[in-house]
């Protein structure tokens, strides 16, 4: 079966009492893609991932992953997904190695493969000597790397990564990107949220900007510099950051400064 899209979000709505966190998000993402979602704080990036992970319920809309519609009663689809969430989901009283054992068993990785995969992951992310240390003693960057390792241990088809590179050292960051690129080449889809706009522009194939719960811009990253900034002069945008600031900043608020500085 040839799938149109790996991730299909249609009219996704999330309300918290009277607040509209998501206002009809529609996104379609193909396989072999690294998709970046950027937006200001509180724009709704993490809400989308949390809904897909099943941590919170959607108010309305449809989610299809790998061609299957998902709902709160269905959990089997998670076998093919991997998550790195904004709030760490680690069990801090376990050691790094124990946590990876736990995650691999929860994802039903074959018992014979578990040891090898864990050792490889710890080695790649330079955590081998910390494998038997409690997670609560890890630095933020180490925790992020461990969460990433746990998310890919079962070789998922779709990865949802909420700020995956935050607090991670440049060497490990490069390794994470290389792994993600390799997964993409093998047909996986990677969904990333980030505040690092230059990194998203450089690393992702497609990008969307979310603001106040709405998608305000979406294109392939290679097309960013073709987007017209000024209809009169035909001047184009020079970076994702320019578009981001233009589309997410209230013009009046932009002029506000601190009176005492």
């Amino acid at each position, binding site marked *: 079966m040839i799938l149109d899209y790996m991730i299909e979000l249609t009219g996704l709505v999330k309300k918290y009492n009277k607040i509209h966190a998501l206002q009809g998000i529609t996104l379609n993402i193909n396989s072999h893609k690294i998709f970046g979602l950027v937006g200001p704080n509180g724009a709704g990036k993490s809400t989308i991932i949390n809904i897909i992970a099943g*941590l*919170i319920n959607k108010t309305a809309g449809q989610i299809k992953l790998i061609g299957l519609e998902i709902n709160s009663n269905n959990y089997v689809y998670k076998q093919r*997904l991997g*998550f790195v969430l904004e709030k760490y989901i680690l069990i801090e009283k376990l050691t790094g190695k124990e946590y990876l054992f736990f995650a691999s*068993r*929860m994802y039903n990785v074959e018992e014979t493969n578990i040891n090898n995969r864990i050792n490889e992951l710890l080695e790649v992310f330079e955590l081998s000597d910390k494998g038997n240390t409690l997670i609560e003693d890890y630095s933020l960057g180490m925790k992020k790397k461990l969460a990433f390792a746990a998310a890919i241990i079962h070789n998922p088809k779709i990865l949802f990564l909420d700020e995956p590179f935050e607090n991670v050292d440049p060497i490990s960051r490069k390794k994470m990107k290389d792994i993600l690129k390799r997964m993409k080449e093998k047909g996986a889809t990677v969904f990333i949220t980030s505040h690092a706009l230059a990194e998203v522009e450089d690393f992702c194939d497609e990008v969307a900007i979310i603001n106040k719960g709405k998608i305000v811009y979406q294109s392939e990253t290679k097309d960013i510099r073709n987007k017209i900034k000024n209809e009169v002069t035909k001047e184009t945008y020079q970076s994702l950051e320019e578009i981001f600031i233009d589309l997410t900043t209230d013009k009046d608020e932009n002029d506000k400064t601190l009176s005492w500085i």
Partner: protein
Amino acid sequence: MEAQQIKALFLLNLKSFFSLEQIVNTLLIFCTGFLWNYYVNENIIINMSVMYFLFFPKLCSPFNETRVPRMYLIYPINFKSVVILKDLFNTFFFILYLIFLYIFNLFLRSEHYGIWDVFIYFFFSVIPLTMLCNYIFYKNYGQTYNVLKYVVLSMLIIFSVSSITFLSVKYLPTLINIVIIFIFFYMWYKNHLNYSKLIFKEGE
């Protein structure tokens, strides 16, 4: 639920049960139980139930980490099964705990209540109460968390407190005893409620 997942959860709970934090808690409970048994209340059944309620929030989540239950949701596993499995683990570990406590009591007391008194009480009141509370808390996961559940839980607690108070008054009619039971129930109720709220908070 796959065998591997059960293994993972079992090992997690086992590790939680034998963690340093849990061992210290258990020792504290043993000491409190012993002192209370010796000075305040001679009824081992009441001691057992109070200690169970004191112990319950700890058993409820591995390492007493309030965020852990949400973590299960990212895995391909039925959340209801996890809750049932945790109830079974709790029961299993608590039976172990009861056995230790009973042996401990044998050494400390010349007169004691029969083990059947303890187990009958345990099986017919504490387990159903625990299961019912869990059912109330988890059955509507992610749905509207309505006030009715609090009302039902409060009624259950009032009913249980009344029964135990009755027993307590029968054997040792002291105000201190009743107050202690209320404090223990309150602690359990508050811990359990906070724990559940954390799970449901963002699902509302």
